[in-house]
């Protein structure tokens, strides 16, 4: 389930909701006026035909039933009545179908509009902005929020039709008999008021029900997540008690809603019927006075049944408005997200392996908690540098900054002399390849993942060979046409990393950044990969490394601690001069890598789970 961001409906005063709701509707209608107009037309056809139907009903009573049952049948009148009944019903049905379908067209097109805008934001917004928001929330904006935001469109044509239905009905009532019309004029507002009152009263308990459904769900989630702990510590009874409390609270809230329903629903059901009885009593007297015919009396009663329920729906649009305007406000929040900056005068980068020069670099995600502070270092073109540091020391952030994915908080980064923010973004992304620890592959064929629609097959072949991915790919059921992901083949962690590395190498980068990109690869294979890179690829490289075997392949080591570069030199120098550096790399050495890591040590029996 996609998490729904907390609903702020309860903070919305009704009048404010209406004030904010109307511009929301206006915006939708302006965006897609055509289908909306057709829907409203359908609704008007329905309203006028519904009222016309009650006239026919009265006429049937007066001109078909009464004379025919006295033995004076006029076949022509009967036929006219029958044809009118069916034609009017057909017109009414066409009106309803038109309204419903085109209301759906309006709202669904609006969904397309909003979704396209939202996903466009997701594509162009800076990485830092995306990371401030949990994935679930971002998905909810494009999924649930969009659904809720446009929901208000659907009842709108019906509501507009309803207003005309009420107007037509009132006119018809007065035409039939002004005195009976007065009963209607008092009854229907009372009904609308009672209904309003009901929905307001039930709102708080209904929200409680929702909260408690959530509570029950959290208890269940947590409890089954911790099943192992619950079992070994014998906490079953305690957990059942926790759920019982939550379930009983939910039950009580539901009963509370039920009590509201039991109080109002029968009353709302009874009121129009009492109104019809009043019409019967008063109408009988009016008929005896000759003020109206039986047929008109029947028509008035039919108008009452016609209007009884729509009165209850009047409040419905108002109900939807706050929900929709809150959802739209959240969407607008997304649409206001910034775009990643584009340089005013983009500068092309050198076609040679790039030099990296970092001066006074600082970065913080949370103000006051620097992840990187005052980092300065240089990497010469073609040099291979290892970046070493404990978990959380800022290695990944440093890689992302150098790749230009995130903008520095302080300091400068230059690539072969060009400030990174001035570099042509397309050129920069062609020249700099960052390979992530979490190798993200698309749910697509492996070939598509490697080439990404651009590279030649020769380049792909070279890259897969260098990344030591060629053999396992050849062993896949459909080779590089194998589809990865959800419904496709799952690769082991090491295979994924090698595929991701190949994808980076395909682009012939001039600066290669490996952020722990071979952590799940068997050390022997990793060594072959790095040796191959050194030998065949003309590139500068910054490699985040843990294993001594990896570090040993680098020309130089940068040691990062708590966001600062504390040492810069060869591995041997650092071992000698930095006791905690030595402790750290040796700690990994002593414990060794996991004995049962999921990667395959041997290409001969690659597992394809």
């Amino acid at each position, binding site marked *: 389930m996609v998490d729904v961001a907390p609903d702020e409906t309860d903070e919305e005063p009704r009048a404010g909701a209406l004030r904010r709701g109307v511009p929301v509707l206006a915006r939708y209608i302006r965006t897609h006026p055509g289908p909306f107009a057709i829907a409203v037309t359908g609704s008007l056809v329905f309203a006028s035909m519904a009222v016309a139907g009650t006239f026919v009903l009265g006429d049937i009573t007066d001109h078909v039933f009464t004379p025919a*049952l006295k033995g004076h049948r006029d076949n022509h009148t009967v036929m006219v009545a029958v044809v009118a009944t069916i034609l009017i019903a057909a017109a009414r049905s066409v009106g309803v179908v038109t309204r419903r*379908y085109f209301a759906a067209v309006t709202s669904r097109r609006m969904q397309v509009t909003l979704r396209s805008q939202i996903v466009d934001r997701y594509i162009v917004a800076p990485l830092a902005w995306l990371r401030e928001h949990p994935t679930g929330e971002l998905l909810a904006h494009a999924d649930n929020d969009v659904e809720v935001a446009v929901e208000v469109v659907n009842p709108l044509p019906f509501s507009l039709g309803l207003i005309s239905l009420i107007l037509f009905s009132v006119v018809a009532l007065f035409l039939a008999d002004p005195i009976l019309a007065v009963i209607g004029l008092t009854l229907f507002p009372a009904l609308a008021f009672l209904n309003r009152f009901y929905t307001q009263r039930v709102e708080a308990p209904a929200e409680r029900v929702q909260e408690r459904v959530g509570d029950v769900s959290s208890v269940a989630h947590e409890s089954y997540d911790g099943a192992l702990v619950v079992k070994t510590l014998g906490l079953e009874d305690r957990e059942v008690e926790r759920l019982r409390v939550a379930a009983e609270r939910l039950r009580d809230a539901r009963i509370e809603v*039920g009590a509201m329903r039991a109080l109002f629903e029968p009353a709302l059901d009874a009121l129009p019927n009492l109104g019809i009885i009043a019409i019967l009593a008063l109408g009988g007297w009016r008929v005896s006075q000759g003020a109206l015919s039986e047929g008109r009396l029947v028509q008035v009663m039919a108008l009452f049944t016609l209007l009884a329920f729509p009165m209850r729906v009047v409040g419905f649009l108002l109900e939807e408005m706050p929900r929709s305007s809150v959802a739209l406000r959240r969407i607008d929040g997304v649409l206001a997200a910034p775009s990643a900056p584009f340089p005013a005068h983009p500068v092309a980068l050198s076609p040679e392996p790039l030099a990296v020069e970092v001066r006074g670099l600082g970065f913080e995600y949370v103000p006051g908690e620097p992840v990187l502070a005052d980092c300065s270092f240089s990497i010469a073109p073609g040099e291979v540098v290892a970046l070493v540091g404990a978990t959380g020391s800022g290695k990944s952030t440093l890689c992302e900054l150098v790749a230009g994915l995130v903008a520095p908080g302080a300091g400068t980064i230059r690539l072969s002399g060009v400030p990174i923010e001035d570099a042509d973004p397309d050129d920069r*992304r062609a020249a700099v390849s960052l390979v992530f620890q979490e190798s993200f592959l698309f749910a697509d064929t492996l070939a598509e993942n490697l080439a990404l629609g651009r590279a030649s097959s020769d380049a792909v072949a070279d890259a897969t060979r260098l990344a030591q991915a060629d053999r396992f790919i050849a062993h896949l059921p459909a080779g590089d046409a194998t589809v990865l992901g959800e419904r496709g083949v799952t690769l082991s962690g090491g295979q994924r990393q090698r595929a991701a590395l190949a994808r980076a190498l395909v682009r012939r980068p001039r600066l290669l950044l490996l952020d722990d990109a071979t952590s799940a690869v068997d050390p022997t294979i990793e060594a072959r990969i790095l040796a191959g890179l050194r030998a065949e690829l003309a590139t500068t490289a910054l490699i985040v490394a843990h294993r001594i*075997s990896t570090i040993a392949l680098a020309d130089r080591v940068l040691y990062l601690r708590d966001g600062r570069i504390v040492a810069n030199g060869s591995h041997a120098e650092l071992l000698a001069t930095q006791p905690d550096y030595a402790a750290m790399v040796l700690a990994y050495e002593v414990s060794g*890598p996991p004995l049962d890591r999921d990667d395959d040590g041997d290409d001969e029996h690659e597992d394809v789970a």
Partner: protein
Amino acid sequence: MTPPDHGAAIDAMADTAGPQAVDELVGLEHSLISVRVALDDDEDVPPEGAVKILRRGLAASPELRVGLRVSLAFAFITAIGRLIVPVLIQLILDHGIVTKAGFDARFTYTACTIGALAIIAFTAMSRITYMRFIRAAEAALANLRVRVFSHIHRLSIAEHTDARKGVLVSRVTSDIETLARFVQWGAMSWILNGTLVILTIMVMLAYSWQLTIVVLVAYSPVVPILRALQRRQLAAYDLTRTRTGELLTELSETVGGAAVIRAYALEGRSRGRLAASIDGVYRAHLKAAKFFAMMFPLGDFFGAVAIAAVTIATAFWGHGWGIDVGKAVAFLFLVNLLLNPVAELSEILDQTQTAIAGWRKVLAVLDVPIEVPEPPDDVARPLPHGALEVAAHHVEFAYRGGDRVLHDVSVTIPAGTHVAIVGETGSGKTTFAKLLCRLADPVSGTVAIGGIDLRSVPAADRRRAIRLVPQDGFLFDTTILDNVRLGRDDATDDDVLAAFVDLGLDGWLARLPDGLQTRVGERGDLLSVGERQLVALARARLADGGLLVLDEATSAVDPETERALSTAMARVSAGRTTVSIAHRLSTAEAADLVLVFADGRLVEQGTHVELAAAGGAYAGLYASWVGNTRTTPQAGLA
């Protein structure tokens, strides 16, 4: 002519959000449980007929029988309340207004007064019966939920796999919510509308059996047409769900792969794919909207056909059938009462199918046998205190409906020994460790702890003496103190603190923002994996356990926590038998005994030194890893 009445209501409500909308208007409950939850989780649930499920469901929740009786009473009362008006119209037209003596004021006013009083009385009664119904139904649902929840917790750990976790949660949440929605609306609707249709037809028959036949024949085509449309509509809804799922997948790739997309300039690719997905959702929705739009006017239209038929029949034969004006008019209004049930029919059928499916799944969970029963008092034998010997004797194990995962495992671990179990993923080493904690029982063979068959050990003893430190170190969303105290109810704050001090973890605790009162977050996510294991070790320390089973964390633990862990491990295992599922070579090297598992068999056992020299599986494993990590140029420095 048929005034749309409730038909219009359904029409308007359904306008807003599809099948659930009616329910939402009536109940104003926008359920949190998304329809999308648990769509493909009906595995291993035997198909059973709806009637059978209903019968079994009622047996499982006896309170529902009471609810059923009350709801029948409610339905009768409500239906009669609705029939008062058409009957009154007939009476007054025929005997009050259109009489030979002219307007009969006394009859009219008396009848109207009685009618109004009756409506008020029936309204009051329907309130009372409805309340009783809701109380019975909600009590039944709450109890069912607790029973299912409890049953699931008592199932063998084999049922609690990661893959099934979501399914289990949905059994006590969305499945029961589906049922709750059904009880509140769908089931009530069946009973109420069924009663209303029957009573309406009875009143019609009382007026004129000929006209009744005319109405029913004219109106009947609506049912098959509605069913046909509904089937197509359901298929269309399925398509919208599939398409929405595809959009979400595409979208989560865009969000999840944001860094890759930006680093590799893949914006155009993402844009194109997302646009196609968005369009797919749009088309699927419009297709569903088409059927949806056609379904609702059907009842209204055929109602009008019925009225036209009544008009013709009355005009041509009414006189001969003895029909008077009041009865003819009453028919116009009675036809109207048939519209509402038909308009609701397709909604209810849809909801009923979902509810029956949900109920079936819930009942199926209750059918899963509890495979790890606690020993009865006369068989129960307490565990001795102090370090415990572990003996497995020809142990075989298979998960329910699965292949054997352990074959003939026999091993004796002397009390106080530190054992490391190694083997590849899927070798059976974790399963073996679980059997030692009696998270499941062997299919054949025995596991004896401290010389006693585990199946005879009472639950309380088992929990005191055998402690498991799980790999992911799950913690409850509360404080560290509360989490540790779960290990021993009567432990004081000082006891808990002492446990941390004993393990040398007081320094770690001091660095936490609120010490023992630090909240750990959902599942313990505010702590690292290693830190969560520290908490689990403190919990184990608090109890007087004789056997400790430790599942090492596979993911990288930062060096500082790594050191804290190994110190704490050494101290907590002093004086106990310790079985570690080892993921690190260092653990195996330090153990007194190494057990090597492969393909569900115990293939080697011995000390590290013996096994490394023996040239078997362990030696190969060892040589490979040592070769890879220590023969590097700098290895000498290690």
